[in-house]
């Protein structure tokens, strides 16, 4: 009976998290287009519904009803698989993000996280390194020069910045003394880690933006030279899956920044889950703002920033944190 109840609770949590993630992904697209419009002194989508609020619905109908084409010379199996890899890994990363303290229901403590594994942080990295395959294989399988270049650029960029991403979080693990995201949030009940680790925060934010392949790090897509890069040849809902993957990834990064640096669900007055949501949306808005402000980096600038600035800075930061802790 307890096992059955446990499964019921788990499925309820899964349904809520999945629903919120996908709903927010759809409306982040709307927010991005409206906010970017404002930044560039134009209106953005405002025809479908009040303030264009039904635009995501219209987009979804369009994507689902469009023909799902596969190029004649493409590697069919991998071509069909790649978008799913991107979307699934992005969605799965949210499984270890805590969205509140335990609540007690009928004598049972229900943890407000889908899975509190003791290697939560490494789980996120494992999925993020698997997510690269979606980009690299999607680009290769399309059998188009633009896509292949986009895929190669994506793979190179993501493995370069994954290093800085991982190293920037070592001081956080040292401070929290745990890989579990729940413990990391609990360690910030008094002050968020952004105060103790500002260097770490900057490195993580930059690498996270590079991992999500958004402007100024959007070389794998680079519309004006590669024409959308690794997803040039995709249409319909498979293109939609890449899109969902990108916007879910934005939310996951927002959630991770909230968990590692902004104190997770901690906050006064409002319920914990609402605080986490506010922090996620705040990070997403900053990312959109950056997109509206900066031009794209050149390839050598991208690699130099990753290997010659972020990685050494992260290593020095680990050393300094270690010395200060001992």
């Amino acid at each position, binding site marked *: 009976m307890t096992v059955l109840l446990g499964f019921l609770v788990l499925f309820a949590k899964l349904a809520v998290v999945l629903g919120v993630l996908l709903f927010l992904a759809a409306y982040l697209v709307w927010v991005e287009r409206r906010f970017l419009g404002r930044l560039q002194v134009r209106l953005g989508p405002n025809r479908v519904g009040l303030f264009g609020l039904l635009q995501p619905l219209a987009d979804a109908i369009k994507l689902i009803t469009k023909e799902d084409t596969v190029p004649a010379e493409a590697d069919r*199996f991998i071509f069909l698989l790649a978008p799913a890899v991107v979307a699934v890994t992005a969605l799965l990363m949210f499984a270890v993000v805590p969205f509140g303290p335990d609540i007690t229901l009928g004598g049972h403590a229900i943890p407000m996280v889908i899975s509190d594994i*003791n290697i939560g942080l490494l789980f996120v990295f494992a999925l993020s390194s698997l997510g690269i*395959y979606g980009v690299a294989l999607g680009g290769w399988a399309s059998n188009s020069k633009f896509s292949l270049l986009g895929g190669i650029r994506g793979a190179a960029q993501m493995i370069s910045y994954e290093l800085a991403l991982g190293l920037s979080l070592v001081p956080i693990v040292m401070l929290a003394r745990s890989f579990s995201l729940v413990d990391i949030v609990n360690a910030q009940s008094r002050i968020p880690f952004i105060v103790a680790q500002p260097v770490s925060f900057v490195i993580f934010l930059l690498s996270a933006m590079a991992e999500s392949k958004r402007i100024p790090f959007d070389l794998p897509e680079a519309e004006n030279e590669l024409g959308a890069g690794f997803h040039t040849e995709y249409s319909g809902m498979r293109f939609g899956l890449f899109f969902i993957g990108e916007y879910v990834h934005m939310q996951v990064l927002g959630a991770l920044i909230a968990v590692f640096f902004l104190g997770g669900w901690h906050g006064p007055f409002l319920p914990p889950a609402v605080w986490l949501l506010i922090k996620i949306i705040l990070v997403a808005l900053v990312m959109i703002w950056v997109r509206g402000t900066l031009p794209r980096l050149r390839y050598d600038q991208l690699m130099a920033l990753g290997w010659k600035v972020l990685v050494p800075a992260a290593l020095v930061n680990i050393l300094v944190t270690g010395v200060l802790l001992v």
Partner: protein
Amino acid sequence: MLLYTILFYLLSALILAATGLAVTRRNLVHAVVYLVISFFGSAMLFYLLGAPFLAALEVIIYAGAVMILFLFIIMMLRVADFEEQMFPPGQSIPAAILALGYLGIGAVLIFSDPGSRAPLLPAAAEPRVFGSYLFVKHWLAIEVVSLLLLVALVGALYIGRANKARTVATVNKENV
């Protein structure tokens, strides 16, 4: 316990099938994909045996970083050339001999160890416990491996530098 056994054999079957497919594919990208599935299966096996930390490292390092580098190189090759990239069948004979030897030694080691008869209990090692075990009991091996990696790093740097210096020298000579 039964559930763990079923999962173990399912995962083992998945790993063996994926590895077999990876070895026999003529298309190198397909081979890489199957090898990634195989590594992923091994990671799940580690998790099942109570080592979540190792499972995560297996995915991050092998399935993530190493195989992406393989894929990176393969994607640089021309798609049409895949058939010619394969080794001649004669070269698989030494590989088969080595594999059989490894299988034999492995079987002898496993069956001679009394610990292999004991039923496996579901357990999970904390990363902290795992870390202190590794660095307290096997510190010498860790140091040796780190030194080896350092040598590899210096070697890679030297080769990269040497190439760069030679290119500069050739360009300078041509200019003269």
